[in-house]
Structure formats: C-alpha cells, structure tokens
C-alpha cells in the first residue's frame, strides 16, 4: 500500500503517548478527507498489544517493529527503522507528535528522507485544490504564527504540538497489525541508556486540574498541597521552589519544566515571570492568588485574588468541604 498518511506512534515504558493518539486522530481525519489509507508505526519491545489498540483507533495498518534494541528511544535506531518503513510505502504525509523524542526523531528523519518538516504545528489543514498539507508553525516566543508547507520532497512532514488535537474514538472496523522485521545489531544502537528514572503517576503536564505553589507560600507547601487534595488536583511548583529543594524537579511548571494542559489551574504565591507563565498558556482556566496587587501573574489569569494565601486557601478548603466536592 503506497501513498496515504503515515503516523508515528510513540510509546514510553509500554504506554502510548497522548500526543501520538492526538496525531492519530488528526491523521484519520486527514486521510478520510483525502480518501487515502492511514498507516501507523510503533516501535519498542513487546508492542503487540499497543499496536492492536492503535489498529482499533483508526489506522488501517499498524506496522509493529519489535526488538530489545528499540526498547528505549535512541534517535539513530528509530530513524533507521522508520525510514525503512516509510521509503517503500512512499506516503504523502507523515505526522509525529512533538514530544521530546518525537521532535528528535523528526529532525533526523527529515534529513534521511530529504524532505520538508514543519515543526510544532498548532494546526493542520489541507489546501483546497492542491491537497497540500498546510501547517501553522508558531515562532518568536509563540506570538507569531507562520503558515508553512513542504515545497520539495515527500512525505510532507509535520510534528504536532501536544494538546492541540483530540484522541480518536474507536472505529467500527479494526485495521491490521503487520510485524515489521527489525534487522538491528547491538552496534547499530550507538546510545546506551544506562539509567532511567521516571516517576509515573500524577504528571503535571497531563493533569486536568493542577494547584501550583510558588515562593509566595513562604516555604510552607502544606496549604497548597491540602488544596490540591481537596480539589482532586495534581500538585506542581514554580522553578524557584524546586531549586530550594522543597519539591522534586518533575513538579516544575514553566519553560524549564512542564506546560500545563489542565482545565483548571490554581496558582498560589507565584509572581508570574515569563518563564513561568509560558507554562500556563494551554490551561483553560487560571485562578491566581497573590498578596501583591501588582503581581505580573494576574495578567495571565482569568480569576485574580489579591490576598494572603495563608488566609484565602484555608477558607476555600473549608468552603469546598462544607458543600461537598
């Protein structure tokens, strides 16, 4: 089967990345619009089940490359395998979720395939008449968007910012899984992962509700943590709080940490410097509590409360408790 839309499906420690599901959903939409097939590719060790799942989610064919050499992501091994999948199939469009690894893969793959890559797109459209893929690429700190297209080379490649599109629903007719032979030798995998520490569980970037505590909490995180519990939220912190050793770095929200995709973010005692507020961009509703009426954070919030967190938060907790959640 040649032509069509090709989607790279990333798995991490046996779980599919949300970004990959989102891209699969959009890929499905584009393939249907163009009337072309949709192929997915999944790499790793023991990926059979995940491949089956993706086949139910809209991919007509899912190529599953299973090998211990693919267990951890390495750019060179993944680029090698995906390019060997793509070349003979000659798809029109290739989409990858812009996770850390997806971005690294896409850059190397685009050069291997000699094609144009639109990075971190926040929208994808098919140009009427030409059927060309148009990507909206943000730049200059995110304030300006460039509409781009691949002018030379195939497939037209794009990495997609996580959280922009939605995951697909299961299709009536499931697709098929095709095992893809992996011919890698140990020396083909140049990067050896010697240690890997990942805290699974509440992820700040994936949480629907987050309470973020900043330095304004005066080193006492017990109140914001209580609020997080009372509201069923994941707990996060601003960078300076983690730097002080009061919370682990994986809870950091901001440009050096996680971007929030939450429906509700309650931010307590954070002044709101640019490197923090960039992490709030995709949060739907932001509530800010700060004792400084001129806090920069208020410019990036929907609801603003000027007050002492040590008074506001306990009141809020008891109010929530009184009426039940």
């Amino acid at each position, binding site marked *: 089967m040649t032509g069509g839309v090709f989607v790279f499906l990333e798995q991490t420690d046996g779980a599919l990345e949300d970004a990959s599901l989102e891209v699969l959903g959009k890929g499905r939409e584009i393939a249907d619009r163009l009337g072309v097939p949709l192929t997915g590719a999944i790499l790793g060790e023991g990926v059979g089940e995940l491949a089956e799942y993706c086949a139910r989610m809209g991919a007509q064919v899912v190529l599953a490359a299973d090998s211990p050499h693919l267990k951890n992501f*390495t*750019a060179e091994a993944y*680029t090698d395998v995906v390019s060997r999948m793509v070349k003979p199939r000659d798809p029109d469009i290739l989409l990858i979720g812009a*996770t*850390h690894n997806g*971005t*690294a893969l*896409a*850059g*190397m793959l*685009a*050069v291997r395939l000699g094609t*144009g*890559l639109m990075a*971190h797109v926040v929208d994808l459209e098919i140009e009427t008449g030409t059927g060309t893929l148009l990507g909206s690429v*943000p*730049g*200059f*700190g*995110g*304030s*300006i*968007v*460039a*509409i*781009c*297209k*691949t*002018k*030379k080379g195939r497939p037209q490649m794009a990495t997609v910012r996580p959280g922009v599109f939605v995951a697909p629903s299961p299709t009536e007719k499931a697709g098929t899984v095709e095992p893809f032979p992996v011919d890698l030798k140990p020396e083909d995998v140049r*990067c*050896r*992962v*010697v240690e*890997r520490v*990942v*805290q*699974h569980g509440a992820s700040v*970037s994936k949480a629907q509700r987050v309470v973020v505590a900043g330095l304004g909490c005066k080193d006492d995180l017990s109140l914001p943590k209580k609020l997080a519990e009372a509201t069923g939220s994941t707990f996060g912190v601003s960078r300076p709080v983690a730097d002080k050793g009061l919370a682990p770095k994986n809870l950091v929200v901001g*440009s*050096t940490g996680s971007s929030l995709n939450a429906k*509700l973010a309650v931010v307590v005692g954070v002044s709101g410097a640019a*490197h923090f507020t960039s992490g709030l961009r995709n949060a739907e*509703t932001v*509530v800010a509590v700060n004792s400084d009426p001129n806090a920069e954070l*208020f*410019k990036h*919030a*929907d*609801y*603003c*409360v*000027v*007050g002492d967190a040590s008074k*506001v938060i306990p*009141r*809020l907790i008891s*109010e*929530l408790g009184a*009426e039940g959640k």
Partner: protein
Amino acid sequence: MNLIVCIKVAPKVDQIKFDEQKRTIIREGVENEINDADKNALEAALKLKDSHGGKVVVLSMGPPSFDPFLRLAVAMGADDAVLLSDRAFGGADTYATSRVIAAGIDKLKPYDVVLCGEASSDGSTEQVPPSIAGWLGIPHVSYVSTMEMVGDKVRARREITDGHEVVEVMPPVLASVQLGCNSPRFPDFRRKRWADKEFKLKIMNIQDLGFAPGDVGLEGSRTEVTGLSRMRSPERKREFIVGTEEEVAKRLAQIVKG
C-alpha cells in the same frame, strides 16, 4: 577533546513587532543576542574543556553582523570561531540551515562532541540539532543537562518528561543542551578586548563548503512560508474577585467546582 558549539544569533524576542497591515515581522531596530540555550551549550562545552582539556570552537551561520557575537563567545572562553556566511545561505529553513552547518562542522574534523542549544528563542523548532546529526551521520542525544567523559565514552544526563535518563555513547556525538541547565560564564572582559581587536574570525562561504546555489538558502529549503499571522495568546479574563474573606472563598469554590 575537540568540541564544536553551534550558536545562533537571534533577535530579542520582546523587541519584535508585527506589522498587522503588511503581515510581516518588523526587524528594524531590533537588537540581537546569542540565543540563551546556546550560551548553555557553550558553558557545557567549556566545562568539559575545564575537566578534560582540549579545544572549543564556536560555529554560526549568518551575515557579517554576527561577528561581534562570535567574539563574545571567544571572550567567554572559546578558542576559535567560524562564521559560515554567504548571501546564498539566506532564507534557509531548518533543512538548508542544518545542511550548511553540518558541512561547516565537517570541515573542522576531527571532533568529539558537537553541542547545540535545544532550541532558539525565535524559531524554537528544535529541529536543527537532530537534522545536523542526520547530515553528519552521528548519534544525537537531546535535552542534555550535564555531561562528562567516562573512559572514552560521553556520559550525558537527559531531562525527560517526569524524569531523567543517563546515556552513554562513543564520540563523535551531537548533544543538544537544555535551556537553563547551567550558569553561562560571564565573558572575561580583558579577553574580550583582545577578541574584539585582534582575534581573527574564520569565514567560510559557499565555495569553501562546496555547495551549489540550489543546495542552500531559500532555494535549498524544503519548506516555505506562505503567510504570517499574529497568534492571540489566550485572552485571560483578569477578573479580580473582591469582597469579604467569606465572599471571596464562596466565589472561588464556585469557580473550582466549575
């Protein structure tokens, strides 16, 4: 160790204005700076040199106006600097940019580690470092926070979502370095005076790199921009909730429950 650091000189993002009428970016009067993440990359390289000895060369693709910034990098401690400059290189997308930079790096063989910042403050595509690695045929390790040599291997710590990884790889390797992972050393101003007045910057043009015009710049790009628009950051309501402590708490509870 032979270390090469790719730096981008980018416009200060806060000074950029957008012409709503013409739908173009207004660059006049905008000051440039060394991309912050590339400063982190240079610091990482200088730290490796401090521990293991060797040479650090900075490399950039751009017009002659990048000259003072390369000298600034030398003032920070780089031993040498190369500017890849030619009219033909202009208008390049990440494909054509990475191609030219890779060719420049190739001319500086042999090298052990190539370092780049993970992304630039203006384009922020994060695509150039892996693409360079693709052209050079070397492995790429991304989001590196610290690096050291263990025997003859490079050991790098990568920061990933919800955790970290430690990776070992034989050089040559390209490492893209995480923004803010270290504190870039302030330039030595005595060295800067020497760098500004006496240091000889090496310049390579299209012939030096052996390219035809169609390979590079706008012509050699694989993508093109068909239009620009302003992206509205989510318009926040900025509604201040005032009242007694009780009233505020009740309103907040309402909002929280959605």
